[in-house]
Each structure stands twice: as C-alpha cells, then as structure tokens.
C-alpha cells in the first residue's frame, strides 16, 4: 500500500490507539483541523475525541512533564513537539525525569512514552526551526532515539516506539513528511535494527534520516565512477546496530558517516569514534564524517542549501579515500 511518510506514522499511532485506550496523544493543535504542526495527526481528534487527543497550551515543558507523569502512572502517551528544536525547553523533563525514573525507582516505575520531534532543515524555516539535535538526546542514558527515513520505517518504528516501556525519541524529518512509499509490512520494526539500503563492496556510507537519500544519490554517482558504495541506514541511533556496521566494514574497509547535524559534537562523531575503537583492524582509510557547517541554519534558501551536506559532499569524501 503506497502512503506518505506522515500518513504512515499517523496510521501506526491510530493502530495502537484503537488497540489500547491507554495510548494517548498530546501536543499543540494535534486535535484541531490543522492536525499538528504539519498535518501528521489530521483526523485523529475526530476518531479518538478530545480526551485522548489533547490540544495543549504553547508550553512544551508543561505538557511533556504531564506526559512523563502520565507514563509513570500507567498511560502510554505520545507527545508531539511541533518543532524538534523545542526539545531544548523539555530537557529537564526528559533528562532528569523521564530518562532516570526507571533506574531510580529500581524498575518499579517505567516511562512508556514517545516524544515526536520533527527534525532537520530544508523548509526554509530559519535557525530556530531547522535543527538536528540528535546528539542532545543520544547522550542521555535512558532515552532511546529512532530516526525513520521512509514510510515503511515511519510505520514500523512508531509501533515499536509506542510498545517500548522506555521513553523513545522519534525524530521525524520535516522534508520527508510528504515522501510516498510502499508500506507492506505492518509489524513493528525492532529498535536497534539497521538496514542496508543498497549493497556495495568498496565503501560503507552510514547515513541517517533524510541523509539516507542523499547517500543513495551519492552511491549512484559513485557507481558511475566504478566505486561500489554500500548505504546503511541504522534507523535507530540508540540502540545502534553495530553488527550491521561490522559486517559491512569487513567487506568495504572504508566508511563515511553522514548526518544533517552540524558536525561539531554530532552523533556521527560517536559512530566514528566507536568504529575506530572496535573495528580499527578493519579500516583501510580514516573514518570520514560529514555534517552541516558549524553555524545556525540560515533562513535564506540559497544559504540554507550551502550549509547542509549533500550527495556531492559524500562523493567527494569517498573519493578522497582512494
């Protein structure tokens, strides 16, 4: 069945809400006709009513805190933060409460909640609405972080995120919202299970979110130059599918890690460092890392494009290895 990315993640939310009345949704405008920030929840208010699909005041700290409490006391809330950038104002609720409670109460409490964070740039939304803050979240023990890159994964990862008894950060990319694709598997995709998007033998490109598709484009360009690139989409950052990376590296011995985050302190650094630690003997070239420039995302579309990484950057990084 062909569906759009945001339709797929909506369908998955609806499936679980139909099955389990404890699954609820909260966020700004999620109930109303706008259907959330970009229409991800359109129609859900009508189906599930204002009690389970709750419009909230513009106070992410308050409603995320409320969701942590609700999760601790038996519900399975889904929270929509209209722009992932606003995760900064809910860091205390996530870092000091949601991520810690299960540990601090010796497992007596679990926090089964999903925080949906529309991520990334490309919509000319300016510096405060275009960021990729993966590293803020991956750094915190107790949070899981997933990053679907296509409708099928948006569906399967949403099911797993809702089913998980831990707080799961669900990074949905703004530019991918309208991407249409086949969804033919209606099972949950286990967290920590990556996928090979295209097989290759000369270099591994690990890419996340929208960058998966830039990496695929790069792989095509590289193929024209006789370089066979394997594109790996880890799908979830925490937990991470190291086994898949190891298998690929045994074949290719070279790796480029790509994300849309600005490069300094990005999660790509964690991936690169871990590869150097664990798979040093498999490397035939230094690990290359690609990200956005270390600056706020510009509002001007021309400048925005120049700050973000693209397939040409990936091709160039790969060619430097040979």
């Amino acid at each position: 069945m062909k569906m759009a990315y945001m339709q797929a993640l909506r369908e998955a939310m609806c499936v679980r809400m139909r099955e389990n009345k404890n699954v609820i949704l909260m966020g700004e405008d999620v109930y109303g006709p706008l259907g959330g920030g970009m229409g991800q929840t359109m129609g859900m208010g009508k189906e599930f009513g204002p009690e389970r699909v709750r419009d909230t005041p513009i106070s992410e700290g308050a409603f995320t805190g409320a969701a942590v409490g609700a999760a601790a006391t038996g519900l399975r809330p889904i929270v929509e933060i209209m722009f992932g950038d606003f995760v900064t104002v809910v860091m205390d609720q996530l870092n000091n409460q949601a991520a810690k409670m299960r540990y601090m109460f010796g497992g007596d409490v679990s926090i089964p909640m999903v925080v949906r964070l529309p991520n990334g740039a490309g919509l000319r939304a300016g510096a405060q609405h275009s960021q990729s803050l993966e590293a803020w979240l991956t750094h915190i023990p107790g949070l899981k972080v997933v990053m679907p890159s296509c409708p099928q994964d948006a569906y399967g990862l949403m099911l797993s995120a809702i089913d998980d008894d831990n707080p799961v950060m669900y990074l949905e990319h703004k530019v991918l919202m309208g991407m249409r694709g086949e969804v033919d598997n209606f099972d949950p995709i286990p967290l920590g299970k990556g996928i090979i998007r295209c097989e290759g033998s000369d270099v591994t490109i690990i890419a996340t979110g929208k960058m998966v598709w830039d990496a695929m484009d790069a792989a095509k360009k590289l193929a024209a130059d006789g370089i066979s690139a394997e594109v790996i989409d880890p799908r979830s950052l925490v937990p991470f599918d190291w086994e898949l990376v190891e298998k690929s590296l045994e074949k290719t011995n070279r790796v480029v890690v790509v994300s849309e985050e600005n490069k300094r302190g990005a999660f790509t650094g964690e991936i690169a460092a871990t590869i150097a630690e664990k798979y040093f003997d498999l490397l035939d070239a230094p690990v290359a890392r690609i990200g956005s420039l270390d600056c706020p995302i510009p509002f001007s579309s021309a400048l925005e494009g120049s700050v973000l990484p693209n397939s040409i950057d990936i091709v160039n990084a790969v060619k430097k290895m040979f």
Partner: protein
Amino acid sequence: MAKLVVMPKLGLTMTEGTLSKWLKHEGDTVAAGDPLFEVETDKLTNTIEATDPGILRKIIAQEDAVVPCLEGVAVIAAADEDISGLLASAGAPTAPAAEEAAPVEAAPAAAPVAATHNGRVYITPIAKKLAEERGYDYTQIPGTGPNGRIVKKDVENYTPVPAAPAAPAAPKTKATPLAEKVAKDIDVDLSKVPSNGRVTAQDILNYLKASREVVKADEKPTEETKRMSAMRRGIAKNMSDSYLSTPVVTYNMHADMSACKVFREQLKNGGVKVSYTDILVKVCAMVLKEFPLLNCSVDGDNIIYKNYVNMGVAVALDNGLIVPNIPDADKKTLTQLSAELKEISTAARNGSLSMDRLSGGTFTISNLGMFGMDTFSPIINKPEVAILGVNVMNDEVVVVNGEMVIRPIMRLSLTADHRTVDGSEAAKFLGRVIEILENPALLMA
C-alpha cells in the same frame, strides 16, 4: 615576481640533499628570512630560510625527497601569479627519498620502498594486519593511498621478493591433516619431524618431547628493520668506499709522555690550558709538512701534494660521527688550535657546523683514548691518505737504562694508504711524531 626555491649547495662537496621537513605549508604567506624547510645532508641538518616574500604556492619536493643541488623544491609567488611556466621548467624529480637514494645502498638486500614520513611508514590498520598475516615486511610495499599510505589493495597486489640467501624451498613434507594443523598451530617445521613416510600428530609429539622445541610466542626473538638516517647512510657509504678501495696498513708505536706531561703542566702554570689532542694536532701539523706524502691525495695515477694542512678531528655524536677540520693548522699556534678545536667540536655536537668545515681536510686524528683503547685500525677519511688513531695513556713499566721504571705511555695507531705511503715512510712519520712528543722543546725548532 614568482621565484623558484632551490635545494641549496651548502658546501663544495654537496651534490644532493634530503628535504627532511617543510616548515611552511602550501598556501602559507612567507616573509624573507622565514624558516622554510630543513635539509639533511650526509653530514648536517640545516634550516633554509626564504629569500623572497610571497605565498608558498607549490611544494615540488615532498618531505624525504632527495633533491640534487640547485634543483627546484618549491615556488614562492604572489597569490594570483601564473606559475605554470616555472613549474614546467623546474620539472624536479620528487620521488621519495627511498627510491632516489637507492644507489647509496649497495647492499644486495632490497631497499625499503615504502614512502617514509620522518621514519614512519603510513599504512592503514587493515593493510598492516593483512601484511602481518601474510608475513610481509610492509616497509617493502609501495603505498598508493592518500599521502603514500599503504592500503589493503597494495598488500593484496604485493609479491614479496624472495630473500636471496634463504634456503631453497624444501619439498613439502607429507603429513596427515591433523598433523598439519598441529604443526601450524604450534609452529613446528614438519620437515624436521622424523616419521615413517607420512608425519602423524604422534610423530610431532614425539619430536617435541625429544627436542623440547616448544617456543612460546612471546619468547620468540624479534627483529626490527629501521631505515638508516641520512648521516648513517653517509658514514656507511664513505667508510665502505674507503675500506674497499684502499690498500691500508696500520702501524702501532708508543710514546713516553713524561716530558709531554711536564710540558703541559708548564703551559698550564703559564695560563695556557691545552689537551693532549690539541698537542697532537700541533705536532702532526708540523710533522706533516716534513712528510708531504702523508698529506696528499690520490687521483688515478696522480698524487696531489698540498702545501697546507687542514687537520680533521673526528667528533663522536649521539647518532653518528663527523670529521670537521681546522684549516691551515700548520700555521697556527697551539693556543689558536686549542680554541678552534673546541669551537668546531661544540658546533659539531649542536649541529651548527658550516659545510666548509666538513670538507677539504688533509689528515685526520681520531682519539679513542678516553674509552681506554689499547690499539685499533682507523679507516682513512677519503680523499686523505692517512689517519692517526690515538689510544689510551697509561702508566706502564718500561725499561730505561737497564732499569724498570714507571712512565706514562701513549699508544698511537697510524693507518696509511700504501699506494703513496710505504712502510718506511709511515714508520718515519710516526717516529718523528713520537720524537716531538717525547721532546716537546722540538716544537720550537
């Protein structure tokens, strides 16, 4: 104005230099007088300064490249200036040192071909692992990756040169599969295991019991191959050339240094502090004027006589040896010689010696006395024809006028080139040196 920066000629005998280190990067702005790069010759390391201001537009010779004197190593020019003409005219070879220096290494063993970076060979982790697994010496593998790095493909494509003197491959010993596995696991040479036709695992166990040949991996002796420094290569070449091309004889005699000791004390009391080496320099310089055949050089069928004495003195360094010389030693006073000797040996040790002090010597003194040496046969520093080895000075019992007395005795070892210096000439020279040492007043004559 675009300028070609060239490998400088730092002395009369310098024909090429190793560009050991760039102190600026391509694209750097350079002012006249800025340190630009370092040059290593067989004798010295010198820092070369920029003579013209501009931008270091292009580095032609990479680090470790051996470049003939006056060939281009870089271009300094304005930011937007066209330098293509200069680059084309330069056409300087930029091959890494190892290849360029190949003729120096006359030894039959294959020279390392991997590009080195200050002695390091760049190799990726997997390439290194693979090379070790296959038992290759990776310093022999040419690297084709970025920065000359040896990559996996280079190891895969590499065919090792069979070590020449190695024993011919023994015919494969027949063995059971288990025996083969056991032999491989515990590293036993199957061909050495006695058996009745086909080696079995039991044969190996019996053999081990008998020979106790089990050597644990961590107890295995190891070897390490390191490339010689430029100075060491220079010493190796010069010493081999000299030793293999010259018929030499070493003559040993000893001097009773009693009078010399008194002479030195008298000088000291008069405020002149000199060492025995200083005195030997003075004495030899004087005697060489009387024996021109020991102060000459040989060129084919010709003998080149010199009417000056440039006295070389071997100076040991931490990592090698060099022989700076004192020019016109025969015309200088003992005080002057002593001061100059101190100056050149200090300069030699801190690497600030000028190239001219390292060439043009006519005779060499090499003193190993401080190490307690009794006798040795020094190798002549070409194109000179003789070298005086100085040994330890010890109190010894000697017979003087039919009586045993204790005297300070110094032993001297003169090596001379028999093409010009016959035994009688060498003996007379050494005898004369000793005569003066035993009667220092003769220095006044």
